[in-house]
């Protein structure tokens, strides 16, 4: 019987376990390891500060998302012994494996930025990238009656690179609804040279920021967050003042990756072939989701699309056959823009987000605000728990990026 160990019981680990269990049945012993039992629906964190979602509704049991027959071990990973094909847990347990799937996501590292764990933090400096921060921001925004609100991404990569922009859009809407928008200065501060990494989408998103009166500060690499004086300071000496800062801290991989020599890169992410999702360090280690160092967004949709490829390739590997599934970098994100509307972007390694429709000519509008997209985003929560985590294919949504419906520039057609 094949032994598959899956590190991480979040989006990637759960859907990989369920897909592999379906493929192998009782022919494989699958164990998922996580340090706690709380599975957080991370896309919902964005809504908590604006009172649009309740924190308690975002959390469910990790083991209950796994199909019967999949083992679950609650424990901290100490390290992976690459030579011996064994995982060591902090409680002394050792798990041997024929295939290891790494799905331990990304970790927030506020301690890496000067001042980000200092005075004023978890108060008028906070983040919506974890549950406590999102709840704290709900209180802070409810009490905010005017002044400078700054949204700052310290550096990339971060989970869901559009979420900080969505926060700006929703803040504009939130304060408009409260009737105090004219008393709030909104500023988006990014280390990038534009609002987003890809030029066509960046232009659209910058247009929305401008229309909503959100100032954009680019190429700002934050060296210090001074909560006491209310200012961000960049490494090149610029300053941005704030009364309330919403900060997205530096991200890194899980800490056991650093304790497992050779497993990860400088930031603790595991290098993997971007198409097969097999790690570059060992043939029997596969990676998916935010834990992977591949050139695509750290987002749940990516993890979902990767899951199909990963499950196939793990199966091929265990059966001694060549890996034949290939991930194209497909990413699909709804971008909330406030006032009951949202945009949708869809792209992959080779194609940047383009206008048009998804998944074909008659579909959801791409790179354009619409009520339909907002409904799509809201509906996604149900699909996440009932279809995506169980490892089912979503109707009309495939791992490969659809080209139909997209308006490609002339140069790309040649």
């Amino acid at each position, binding site marked *: 019987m094949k032994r598959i160990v899956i590190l991480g019981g979040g989006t990637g680990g759960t859907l990989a376990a369920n897909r592999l269990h379906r493929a192998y049945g009782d022919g494989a012993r699958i164990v998922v390891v996580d340090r706690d039992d709380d599975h957080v629906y991370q896309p919902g964190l964005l809504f908590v500060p604006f009172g649009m979602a309740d924190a308690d509704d975002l959390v469910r049991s990790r083991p209950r998302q796994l199909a019967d027959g999949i083992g679950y071990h609650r424990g901290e990973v100490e390290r992976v012994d690459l030579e011996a094909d064994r995982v060591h847990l902090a409680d002394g347990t050792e798990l041997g494996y024929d295939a290891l799937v790494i799905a331990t996501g990304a970790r927030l590292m506020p301690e890496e930025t000067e001042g980000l764990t200092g005075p004023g933090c978890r108060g008028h400096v906070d983040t919506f990238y974890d549950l406590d921060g999102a709840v704290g921001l709900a209180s802070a925004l409810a009490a905010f009656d005017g002044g400078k609100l700054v949204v700052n991404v310290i550096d990339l990569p971060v989970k869901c690179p559009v979420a900080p922009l969505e926060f700006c859009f929703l803040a504009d809407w939130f304060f408009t609804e409260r009737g105090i928008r004219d008393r709030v200065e909104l500023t988006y501060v990014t280390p990038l040279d534009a609002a987003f990494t890809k030029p066509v989408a960046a232009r659209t998103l910058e247009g929305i920021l401008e229309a909503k009166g959100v100032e954009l500060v680019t*190429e700002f690499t934050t060296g210090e967050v001074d909560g006491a004086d209310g200012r961000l300071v960049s*490494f*090149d000496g610029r300053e941005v003042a704030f009364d309330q800062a919403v900060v997205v801290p530096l991200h890194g991989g899980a800490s056991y990756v650093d304790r497992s020599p050779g497993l990860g890169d*400088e930031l603790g992410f595991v290098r993997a072939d971007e198409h097969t999702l097999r790690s570059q360090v060992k043939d029997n280690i596969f990676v998916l989701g935010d834990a992977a160092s591949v050139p695509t967004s750290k987002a749940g949709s990516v993890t979902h699309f990767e899951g199909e490829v990963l499950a196939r390739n793990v199966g091929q590997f265990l059966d001694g056959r060549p890996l034949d599934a290939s991930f194209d970098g497909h990413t699909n994100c709804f971008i909330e823009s406030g006032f009951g509307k949202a945009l949708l972007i869809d792209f992959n390694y080779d194609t940047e987000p383009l206008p048009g429709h998804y998944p074909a000519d008659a579909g959801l509008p791409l790179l354009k605000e619409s009520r339909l997209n907002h409904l799509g985003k809201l509906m996604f929560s149900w699909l996440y728990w009932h279809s995506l985590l169980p490892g089912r294919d979503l109707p009309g949504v495939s791992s490969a990026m659809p080209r139909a419906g997209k308006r490609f520039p002339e140069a790309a057609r040649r």
Partner: protein
Amino acid sequence: MSTKVYAGTEVPVNEEGFFTDPALWREEMAPAIAADAGVGELGERHWQVLKFVRAEFAEKGTGPTVRVLGKTSGVPVKELYQLFPKGPAKLAARIAGIPKPRGCI
């Protein structure tokens, strides 16, 4: 797309001044590229970063981000900004003749 002449060789560069063919780069070209990029005279610490950037590109196919540079080049981020004001990762990549770092998406 346009071309520049560095150390007597004509090289194609993109609209932001990055080499489109890193194989054409030679160390003698770096001082002139640095001047174009608004970086002053290149010292020993600049070269430490430039050589590191070239090696990273050869191994990984993309230049490192500022954060990775600060962790692995032996030059801390604050000093990187003194050496290459207004964006060390981009400026070091440009002077080292490699594409703009893909960075993060």
